[in-house]
């Protein structure tokens, strides 16, 4: 079977003056359609750089990204990103923020009325339709991130890229939003690539967890399959042997074999 999304021998070096830093080395990864893959690693290991390369916001030094066997090296709505700090445009309302992408992507294929309906449909998916006329500074952090997700979903991306989407949220909001994302993935069957540094989050949400070694020259250290049946329930998993085993594996990787060394 052909890979849906393929990261092919990606290297990334940053050059500043005479100093060159190798951030990523030999990243190979294939993701199937509808799969939920998480990338986990200590901060500074280059996982956000990797996501930016997939999104096309940063270029790879060597290698490339293939989506349905076609190389992609510039940003586009087929790889919509949910940014860590939501990145909603503060001068637009919730509705207009989502509409910005919809108008561009469906300018030829949908009528004005259809686009409006599509924006509302996506706001409904994340339960934010009630706040459609509010501005981002009038809604809570969790709500902003919901709108960010709606904006990305509304572009009907082939791959949804989540850049630590729950990182800036408090624990309760985070759990609630994780459940929402899980439900959306179940319902829509998106292919999702998520960056995270939260072990529980990675195990709960993912089909596979990609563990990165510490930088510089970060590589993929290990890939773990999460063999838990969906739909998953947070409370039931807390005592599930398979869940605990996966969690254990990731923790061992992060804290024993690839401890984060401050000085490194």
């Amino acid at each position: 079977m052909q890979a849906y999304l393929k990261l092919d021998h990606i290297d990334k070096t940053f050059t500043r003056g005479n100093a060159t830093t190798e951030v990523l080395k030999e990243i190979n990864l294939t993701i199937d359609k509808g799969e939920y893959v998480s990338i986990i690693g200590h901060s500074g290991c280059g996982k956000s750089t990797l996501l930016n390369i997939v999104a096309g916001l940063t270029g790879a030094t060597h290698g490339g990204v293939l989506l349905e066997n076609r190389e992609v090296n510039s940003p586009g709505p087929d790889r919509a990103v949910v940014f860590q700090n939501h990145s909603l445009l503060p001068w637009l309302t919730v509705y207009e923020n989502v509409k910005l992408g919809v108008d561009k992507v469906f300018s030829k294929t949908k009528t004005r009325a259809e686009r409006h309906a599509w924006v509302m449909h996506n706001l409904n998916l994340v339960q934010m339709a009630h706040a459609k006329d509010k501005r981002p500074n009038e809604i809570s952090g969790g709500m902003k991130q919901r709108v960010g997700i709606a904006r990305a979903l509304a572009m009907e991306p082939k791959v949804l890229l989540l850049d630590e989407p729950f990182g800036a949220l408090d624990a309760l909001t985070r759990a609630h939003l994780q459940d929402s994302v899980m439900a959306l993935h179940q319902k829509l069957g998106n292919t999702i690539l998520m960056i995270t540094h939260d072990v529980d989050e990675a195990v709960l949400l993912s089909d596979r967890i990609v563990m990165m070694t510490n930088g510089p020259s970060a590589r993929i250290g290990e890939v773990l399959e999460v063999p838990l049946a969906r739909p998953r329930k947070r409370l039931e998993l807390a005592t599930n042997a398979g869940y605990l085993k996966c969690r254990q594996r990731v923790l061992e990787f992060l804290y024993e074999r690839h401890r984060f060394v401050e000085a490194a």
Partner: protein
Amino acid sequence: MSMPAVKTDVATALPVAAAPVVTMTPKRAPQSEKYVKMAKEAAVRVVPPLIVVVLLLVVWELICRRAGSTLPPPSRVFSDTKELIFDPFFDNGGIDKGLFWHLSASLQRVAYGYSIAAVVGVALGTLVGQSVWAMRGLDPLFQVLRTIPPLAWLPLSLAAFRDGQPSAIFVIFITSVWPIIINTAVGIRNIPQDYRNVAAVVQLNPLEFFTKIMIPAAAPYIFTGLRIGIGLSWLAIVAAEMLIGGVGIGFFIWDAWNSSHISEIILALFYVGIIGFVLDRLIAGLAKFVTRGTAVN
């Protein structure tokens, strides 16, 4: 039938000795309380400056009242300029016109020069803010040119245009364009990378990026520049008009000085100050309206 009855009921129900604000709004108690509160707030803002102005007028009157004083006291200023104050619209041809016509001629020049400066300033500022090479090439030039005093441009523009009107407009333009350029450039340079990323993912074309991301994101900075610019234009027009002559508040002041009408100068200065203040408030109000939401992220 019942409507008037209700009204008289309300009116008679009001206590006779109620405060004037309450009797003016005999609808509901909370409503009138709101008006009282608003009146109080207004009083807090208006009363202190009013007291200061009255005090200053008294001091001025006392100082300039003595015989042999070089400047007229406020009472003389008023009696001298009564006609100008109460009839600003007369027009006896030439430059013998009411103050309204002088002020509107000056404001017109400012409107032309400032509008051109706003358009050119935002455009050049965007260029300099967006392109590193444009910044390297143009920024040093701007930094030197902006220090040239407005009036120093006037002889050159008179030589080029050979007419007072376009020269004055040019001086307004060249005075107010620099802060607009520089502030716009800073605003464009400070657009968060996040917004650029969003635009890249959505694939906005350059024009859409300019109108939908750049201008709104840089709007608070742009308006800072516009506000400084309008102040400078109003400063420059009075000085420029003194030299070019014709109808305009600047020449009115110069003409009054030549005819030793000191009271008229004082009246004109009062108007110049008020209009400068109003122009500044106008731009500030526009900025507040346009940039709602942009300041807070």
